[in-house]
């Protein structure tokens, strides 16, 4: 509110949290999550309400990958929505006057109608690369009129808003685009949507340029005055593989916003560019060693416990991470206050796991039949500096309890494709995005899921998670999920939990109307970026305008 009058126009140069990655695909039919962050031309039915974030009530930092509390949602393409039972259904009332962008050779400008939404979901569901079962809870879609879309459920699904209204795979594309050949859909020039930007230029490996959509429906009120969005003319994503180069680009002002900075670099940056504004967030990932619970020696929970106890997590946090991190951020993230059980509220057995006690660990190992210890391979991805650093420390800790660790570094592709592959080792040091409560429990611990790197399998757990998902009552469902989370931590112990790192984002003071939000749920940062305006004068006065 205290902001000066916005200056419209200008370019926002961003190094996003995915700064090293190009868009994997422009064809959302391919179902890769990475495409989403880049598709600023796409919108979905709902989105998070930024007013709950730092610019308003400050209840949500809006850095989460796939989690928005239900009450913090607002309409996007749908102006409003209703959840009805008998039959179970959700009714979306589409916003009127939303226009599809004109894309030469693909489509003319026209209004978005209900059928567009339905075909978007249907064709995506029919793609050969579609994820089986993802939309199985939907029985059918219906469009009673041009501005109403009804999704009939055959069964309640606790994660429905994420799955159909604001998640990774819910960007609404026009039928004209859907009907293109695969090859044409892959071409960014043909990308079409309703979003605040259209794609102007893609130079893979260097930058993605998004230009303002003049017909965008949304607006923002600043200082009591309403401005059509977006406030800027262009958003440029810079693809920078090398960290040093990215930091250099930021400190020279060639980049206005850098969304992911390792804490190690912050001190120097503060010195070099004292005007930079920083925001610190706990990473949205959990860090842990997935232990193969299906194999010896880790099929014995005592061994898994011993391996937790043998590591001084607090020491790692205070030394290696210089205090820049938190213990226990997985499966549930600390930010999910309504789900998260803090350490001190967990059972003593669980709390014990976070207390360093090598003697106890040795005892446990001996009990499990490994008095002389054993050796195991630990697969580590060379892509993560934190992991590369922590691995030797873990090795040292385990040596003290007689367990020998062979560190196997792997390059990203080999590491990732090895997860649950034939050669996956006993220990697999990984980061895993926590997503949202339902998702994290399912993907990491339900039997046979790809991301269940510890090969954890427990029939009762499977049953309970399935039941929780189907539970329509929010209170009940939340309680069930919370219980499952605590069970995993206290009893299952499929992982060695490790501290989660802090991350920073930084921006120059001339970046206005921006508060360090990174994503509104499952990426889709267009609402954030379109609200930014650049104080050109300030930039000039700081000598960074070029």
């Amino acid at each position: 509110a205290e902001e000066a009058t916005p200056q419209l126009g200008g370019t926002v140069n961003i190094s996003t949290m995915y700064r090293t990655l190009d868009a994997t695909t422009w064809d959302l039919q391919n179902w890769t999550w990475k495409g989403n962050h880049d598709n600023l031309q796409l919108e979905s039915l709902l989105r998070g309400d930024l007013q709950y974030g730092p610019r308003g009530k400050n209840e949500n930092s809006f850095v989460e990958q796939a989690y928005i509390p239900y009450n913090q949602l607002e309409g996007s393409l749908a102006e409003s929505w209703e959840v009805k039972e008998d039959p179970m259904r959700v009714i979306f009332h589409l916003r009127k006057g939303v226009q599809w962008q004109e894309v030469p050779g693909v489509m003319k400008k026209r209004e978005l109608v209900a059928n567009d939404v339905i075909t978007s979901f249907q064709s995506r569901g029919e793609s050969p690369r579609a994820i089986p079962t993802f939309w199985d809870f939907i029985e059918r879609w219906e469009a009673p009129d041009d501005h109403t879309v009804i999704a009939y459920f055959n069964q309640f699904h606790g994660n429905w808003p994420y799955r159909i209204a604001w998640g990774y795979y819910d960007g609404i594309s026009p039928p004209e685009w859907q009907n293109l050949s695969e090859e044409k859909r892959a071409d960014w020039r043909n990308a079409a949507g309703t979003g605040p930007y259209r794609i102007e230029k893609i130079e893979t490996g260097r930058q993605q340029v998004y230009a303002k959509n003049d017909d965008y429906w949304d607006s923002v009120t600043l200082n009591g005055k309403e401005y059509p969005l977006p406030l800027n003319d262009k958003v440029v994503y810079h693809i920078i593989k090398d960290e040093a180069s990215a930091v250099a680009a930021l400190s020279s002002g060639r980049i206005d916003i850098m969304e992911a900075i390792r804490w190690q670099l912050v001190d120097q940056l503060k010195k070099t560019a004292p005007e930079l504004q920083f925001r610190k967030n706990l990473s949205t990932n959990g860090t842990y060693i997935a232990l193969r619970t299906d194999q010896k020696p880790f099929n014995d929970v005592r061994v898994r416990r011993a391996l937790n106890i043998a590591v001084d997590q607090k020491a790692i946090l205070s030394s290696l991470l210089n205090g820049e991190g938190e213990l226990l951020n997985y499966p549930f993230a600390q930010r999910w206050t309504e789900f998260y059980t803090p350490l001190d509220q967990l059972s003593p057995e669980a709390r014990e796991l976070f207390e360093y006690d090598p003697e106890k660990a040795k005892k446990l190992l001996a009990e499990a039949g490994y008095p002389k210890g054993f050796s195991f391979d630990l697969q580590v991805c060379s892509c993560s500096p934190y992991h590369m650093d922590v691995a030797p420390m873990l090795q040292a800790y385990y040596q003290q309890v007689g367990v020998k660790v062979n560190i196997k570094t792997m390059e990203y592709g080999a590491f990732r494709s090895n997860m649950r592959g034939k050669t996956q080792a006993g220990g697999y040091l990984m980061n895993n995005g926590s997503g949202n409560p339902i998702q994290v429990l399912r993907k990491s611990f339900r039997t046979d899921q790809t991301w269940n790197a510890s090969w954890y399998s427990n029939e009762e757990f499977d049953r309970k998670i399935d039941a929780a998902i189907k539970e329509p009552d929010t209170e009940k469902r939340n309680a069930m999920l919370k219980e499952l989370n605590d069970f995993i931590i206290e009893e299952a112990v499929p992982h060695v939990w490790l501290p989660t790192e802090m991350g920073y984002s930084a921006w120059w003071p001339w970046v206005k109307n921006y508060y360090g939000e990174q994503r509104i749920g499952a990426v889709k940062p267009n609402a954030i970026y379109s609200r930014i305006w650049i104080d050109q004068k300030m930039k000039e006065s700081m000598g960074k305008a070029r």
Partner: protein
Amino acid sequence: MGFYVLRRLLALIPTLFIASVIAFTVVRLVPGDVLDLMLSENVYSSGAPEDRAQLEQALGLDKPLYQQYLHWAGDALQGDLGESLWRNTPVTGEIAARLDVTLELGILALLIALAIGLPIGIFAAVRQETLGDHIGRTFSILALAMPNFWLGTLVVILPALWWGWSPPNELVPFFENPLENLKTFLLPSLILGTSLSAVIMRMTRTMMLEVLRQDYIRTAWAKGLRERRVVLMHAVKNAMIPVITLVGILVPILFGGTVIIEQIFRLPGLGQLLLEAVSTRDYPVITGVFLVTGVVVMLVNLLVDLCYGYLDPKVRYDR
């Protein structure tokens, strides 16, 4: 001459064939299957064998390797290197979009390397075992000993720390604004060129020493020529032949160097494409990059051979 070129081109066919087989198969030997990777990208997948098979078929990876090769080779002969497994975009297009950056970087680096290496090499040979020679050689070997990425990092980071300067965001095409374009490419190609110059310098020096010992140099002295003329007119041209060969050998090294330099200087070249493709196991892209670099190397070597004709009159084309 035309016939000679044609003959040389024909002679490239077996090499090309072997290169393409290597490019095609080596890549596919990489463990960390693209299917696993694709499936693992998706937190919802369950890794069921049917899903895997379906994806395998969708990507055309279910046929025997030799069939895949034949299919690919057939397309490749028509200039179609297939489509990226992830992006579905034509590999030819992806490479075309990146080739110019790498080529420009490479050519500039090579020019710089020659501009540094040749004079120093010649000088060091002519003044063998003098202070100048020692300094020249020390410099060149130091340049060789310094890892590229380290020098590159310093060059990127220090100006940013000291003067708040970093390489520009925009990559202006050369033909739009040569000056701006060169500004972007100057530093990276300088770093790359410096380390190459060391090799060129050493080769030049060695060859010059060899040539300076030849009888015809003695003849030139005996005619009463000035040192400048003896060196430049009589020695250099003869010393250049192996140096030119070296350029052919340097091209692959140059390509390797660009991988790292492109990364540090944010240049979207083939190296970056390759690294990314390797980490995502995008076989057609890897194969394509491989093949293109291979062909470029072969063509450069052909060019080198043609240069012989100019430098060495004994090489005749017409036979």
